[in-house]
């Protein structure tokens, strides 16, 4: 079904609507109630008309570096730079070396260092600009849907009264507007009258229309979406400028972006490292003077820039923006970066059973004949009696009969003189009377009373079978037949089962390995709940759950210091969504739910919660990995620069120059160039995020330490040596 977990992190296509899925079921059908949930099957392919330009894809395109250049240059403004203390120091250093180079215009070395220091700053700004640029394109597309809608406002708030035409931007909360087929809904609101199919592709990228109707949990409509059929009256719930689209534009543009708690903490650590290295470099001069090797300010500045953690300093904000962006690519809007970070920390996932763990409707899984009836006989009667049952349960009986016993599917029209008894919520039975034979199928109680009415009795083995099915968490349906006026007899039991989606057990297993406990929330009785919980492999379940129970569970988990994530769509989910640390509201849900959650899933796919957690973790890992890499890099830079500075005064220090770099100048320059280029080299990684696999903490740490810690130690030795070789090839240098 929907989100395929293996969707790789470097999501190559412009894939928003890869979800070939159904628009989700907003309300779980209660067993046997026969309520049909609107489900629109979507064709598997992508609808390019709707997806074009929406998502910039996960791949880094070198062209973005060029297009983002103007933005990067604008960011050289010191008032902007000061927000990133590390890069601000580099900028000050660049200004200093520029002044020194101007004062001594003859020295190539000063100019070379100056140019590369400016490039270092520029590369850092480019990384951020590229990350932001991807959001800007999306924002532009969204803006287009916003402009120029005209609203048909009802003058007196009378749904049948006169209309007036006003621009969409003038609507106030509480206004009533009419929308008919072909019109764009002018603002966020709730349907208070009518039912309509709505094309929400402008927001979700999903081309299949969805049903919006007054009352219930599917009443919310979003401004900018288009009514395809019928007429609805919408009560506006959002102020102008604060609509969902407005917020979405703000989010993808990063305008509302604030530093997240962990980003702030990391920035503090980086700033303090910068101070330490600043001290180490500033105090070096008196030591050097004593050694008889006074250093030029250019060399000291170069040393400082190489030491301070520029790599992570340059990429930190790009990593944060890209993390939000990766969520957007999966059609999830996070209202704050804080929520994304919290997702990485989640230790309890609350998952609704229906639609998330199971397919959302019960299906016939088995025929259990009783009283000597044969399987074929039971299947035949079951099929016949289910033809008039249009509920998914009824359909599944027909399908099972075909699959198990090869019974050809029959249609109501095929049988002459047949009198069909359709399924209703009152009778809870369906069946057919044909040629003096009456066949019935339905809820155990209903069929048993029918059998008794027809002079039959309740056979013990049928009751036992029904009991067993119940104990296994299923729902038993009875099939009975009355032939030619004889006493009615029960043929057997149909085992209706909540079918767990494929692959859920593995998924929960992986979550467990990541240290995340899954709790299934269901309105079922504890027996049924336990059976499904066991089958799906969740760690715990909450049966017969009311919204209050859910709330209490969240509070209980949080009191133990755990972070809780959940999804929800109904108005009664809103308090729990607000209470949860990560609350993902379904886009199909009510505005109350969307308001309460800190993320909105435009695909309305509850299983996506798992991906949200993974993206949160990936964001944190990327930060940690690049910080480690950045610090580990310094070791090699010391081995390049220190001998270059002091081997003249103390020839013994040339032993440290085991890279055998050509000359002091080329060694220092090589370190500075490496320091600048590594930023550009790591931009794709920062945007894409490091590869994430759900592993236990130990294995994950070992893997990332090896890759980014040890790798960070070794890489610059190779890089600096290579750059030094190239520099020494330039005539007149080295």
């Amino acid at each position: 079904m929907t989100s395929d977990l293996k969707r790789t992190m470097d999501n190559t296509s412009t894939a928003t609507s890869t979800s070939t899925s159904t628009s989700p079921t907003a309300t779980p059908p209660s067993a046997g109630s026969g309520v049909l949930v609107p489900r629109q099957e979507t064709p598997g392919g992508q609808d390019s008309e709707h997806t074009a330009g929406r998502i910039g894809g996960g791949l880094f395109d070198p062209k973005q570096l060029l297009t983002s250049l103007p933005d990067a240059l604008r960011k050289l403004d010191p008032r902007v730079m000061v927000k990133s203390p590390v890069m601000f120091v580099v900028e000050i250093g660049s200004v200093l070396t520029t002044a020194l180079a101007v004062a001594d215009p003859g020295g190539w070395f000063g100019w070379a260092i100056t140019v590369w220091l400016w490039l270092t700053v520029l590369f850092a700004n480019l990384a951020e600009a590229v990350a932001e640029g991807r959001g800007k394109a999306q924002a532009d597309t969204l803006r287009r849907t916003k402009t120029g809608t005209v609203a048909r406002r009802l003058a007196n708030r009378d749904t049948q009264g006169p209309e007036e035409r006003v621009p969409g931007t003038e609507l106030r909360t509480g206004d009533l507007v009419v929308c008919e087929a072909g019109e764009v809904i002018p603002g966020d609101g709730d349907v208070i009258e009518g039912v309509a199919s709505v094309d929400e592709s402008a927001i979700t990228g999903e081309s299949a229309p969805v049903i919006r109707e007054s009352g219930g949990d599917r009443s919310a409509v979003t401004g900018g979406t288009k009514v395809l059929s019928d007429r609805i009256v919408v009560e506006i719930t959002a102020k102008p400028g604060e609509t969902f689209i407005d917020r979405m534009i703000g989010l993808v543009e990063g305008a509302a972006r604030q530093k997240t708690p962990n980003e702030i903490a990391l920035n503090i650590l980086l700033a303090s490292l910068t101070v330490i290295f600043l001290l180490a470099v500033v105090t070096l001069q008196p030591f050097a003077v004593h050694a008889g090797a006074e250093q030029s300010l250019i060399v000291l500045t170069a040393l400082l820039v190489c030491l301070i953690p520029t790599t992570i300093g340059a990429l930190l904000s790009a990593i944060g923006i890209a993390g939000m962006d990766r969520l957007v690519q999966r059609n999830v809007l996070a209202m704050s970066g804080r929520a994304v970070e919290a997702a990485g920390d989640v230790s309890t996932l609350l998952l609704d059973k229906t639609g998330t763990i199971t397919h959302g409707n019960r299906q016939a899984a088995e025929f259990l004949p009783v009283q000597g009836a044969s399987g074929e006989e039971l299947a035949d009667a079951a099929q016949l009696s289910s033809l008039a049952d249009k509920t998914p349960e009824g359909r599944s009986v027909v399908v099972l009969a075909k699959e198990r016993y090869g019974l050809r599917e029959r249609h109501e029209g095929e049988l002459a003189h047949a009198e069909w008894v359709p399924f209703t919520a009152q009778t809870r039975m369906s069946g057919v009377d044909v040629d003096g034979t009456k066949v019935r199928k339905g809820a155990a109680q209903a069929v048993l009373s029918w059998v008794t009415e027809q002079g039959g009795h309740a056979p013990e083995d049928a009751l036992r079978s029904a009991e067993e099915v119940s104990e296994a968490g299923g729902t038993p349906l009875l099939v009975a037949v009355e032939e030619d006026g004889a006493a009615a007899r029960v043929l057997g039991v149909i085992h209706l089962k909540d079918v767990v989606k494929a692959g859920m057990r593995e998924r929960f297993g992986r979550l467990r390995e990541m240290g995340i406990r899954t709790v299934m929330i269901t309105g079922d009785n504890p027996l049924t709940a336990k059976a499904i919980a066991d089958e799906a492999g969740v760690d715990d379940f909450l049966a017969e759950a009311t919204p209050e129970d859910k709330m209490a569970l969240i509070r209980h988990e949080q009191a133990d210091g755990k972070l809780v994530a959940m999804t929800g769509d109904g108005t009664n989910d809103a308090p729990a969504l607000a209470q949860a640390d990560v609350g993902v509201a379904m886009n199909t849900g009510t505005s109350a739910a969307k308001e309460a959650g800190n993320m909105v899933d435009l695909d309305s796919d509850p299983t996506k919660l798992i991906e949200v957690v993974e993206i949160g973790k990936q964001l944190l890992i990327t930060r940690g990995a690049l910080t480690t890499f950045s610090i580990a890099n310094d070791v090699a830079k010391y081995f390049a620069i220190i001998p270059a500075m002091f081997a003249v005064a103390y020839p013994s220090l040339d032993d440290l120059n085991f890279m055998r770099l050509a000359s002091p100048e080329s060694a220092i320059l090589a370190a500075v160039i490496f320091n600048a280029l590594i930023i550009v080299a790591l931009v794709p990684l920062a945007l894409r995020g490091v590869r994430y696999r759900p592993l236990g903490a130990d294995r994950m740490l070992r893997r990332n330490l090896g890759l980014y810690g040890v790798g960070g130690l070794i890489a610059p030795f190779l890089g600096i040596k290579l750059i030094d070789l190239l520099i020494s090839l330039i005539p007149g240098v080295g």
Partner: protein
Amino acid sequence: MSDLLAAVAQVSALIAALALVHRPLGDYMARVYSSERHLRVERWMYRAVGADPDAEMRWPAYLRGVLAFSLVSVSLLYLLQRVQDKLPLSLGFAPIDPDQAFNTAASFVSNTNWQSYSGETAMSHLTQTAGLAVQNFVSAAVGMAVAIAMVRGFARSRTGELGNFWADLVRGVVRILLPISAVAAVVLVALGAVQNFADIHSVTTLTGDHQRLTGGAVASQEAIKDLGTNGGGFYNANSAHPFENPNGISNLLEIFLLLVIPFSLPRTFGTLVGSVRQGYAIVAAMAGIWLAGVIAVTWLEFAHPGAASQLAGGSMEGKEQRFGEGGSSLFAVSTTMTSTGSVDSFHDSFQGLSGGVLLFGMMIGEIAPGGVGSGLYGMLVMAVVAVFLAGLMVGRTPEYLGKKLGSRQIKLAACFILITPALVLIGTAVAMATGEGESSMTNTGAHGFSEVLYAYTSASNNNGSAFAGFGADTVYHNTALGLCMLLGRFLPMVFVLALAGSLAGQTPVPATAGTLRSDKPLFTGVLVATIVVVAGLTFFPALALGPLAEGLAV
């Protein structure tokens, strides 16, 4: 037995003894600091200072206690030195000069025990016993109290309370330091150390020279000097003096005393936070660094090339024949890495690279295993930093022992780790820039620079040992080093206690399979790497111009 084999045997015996003792001692200390009972003698003391030992303190109150007590200590010790000539047991010594008295007061209260004087020719019996020896006990107990407060920060939840400073201070002295040093003093006397209040003896040596021998309460001061990782010797020659450290056995005993509390406190920590494995991870990081230092210095000293060294079986300049290369190297590494600073050989005379190792042992912040108490809290702060980096790499916002490490915690930890490098580098740089450094050097070039670097590294990290060539008794250095000692001791305590307070107030996060395990060898490795890399990157340029330039030239 060859010298090398003897060295290996000594290290092995030492490790075995520490392994044997750290559990009972660590558990005992945990009981001492969590006990509800007060001894009668303790009650007297509380009454004397008017403290309520059962009142829980939040971190500002705890800090006020630490600072107030230390300020009073500095003042009293200063005063005592300035008027020692007018008090009993003066031995006829003159009062100490103001700058030196300040330096000494700062030195002993900050548990540094840097000595810019010669004990036997400057300090009266009363100053030595009522002043210096008392500070040996209480300054050590203050360090342990702060460490315990830090541990409580991890162990406690949903409260800002860190215990009672006065109770922790008094218990540290009465129940831990006094009993152990009493036993150790008796053993040292049995091994030949002196213990008296005698006047100065004048003796005529075999060659007919006259020599003045000062006796005193040497063995008792020796015991607490090492046990409390103080390091201030009764005699100028410190533990190289036969009255302080008569033979190889007493040498090994003194090394054991240096290390026993710092290596046992992680056990106390583990016990108090409810997981001894957490303590093992910390002690393993300490032991790993310490052992690497011992091996490096021992090897460098044995392997030194040159005719004289080969005849002597190693570079023996500045070392006692009684202890040899092995005993001297083991002592030197242990004393520099425990912030003790007592010496049984002259660090100035060690090989260039060995000197670098000794310097580096201090530069990592005296945490492997570090001073009593200060080693543990310093290591825990480094663990906070290591967890912050490594924790991100497992995909969670960092947490250590169930406590979240957010911006406040990182801010405090960052301030903590900034202080001593800043003091070392700025102190050395100002001394070098003003010429005060060069005028106090005995040697020129790289080694001369090492002397200055060593002095400021030692003072700022509260070690107290010196490259003996450095002429420390100038007004400038007495003042500057005194300030380094005080700031290097008490500023970090401010941040440690604030950090402990912020941790104690949190609700713990339960550990899951996704949580970074801080009780595994992998974490110990990360911790060691963080310590070495951060200190290495900070001090590499300075080390390159001192010990590396000198050592690589050989």
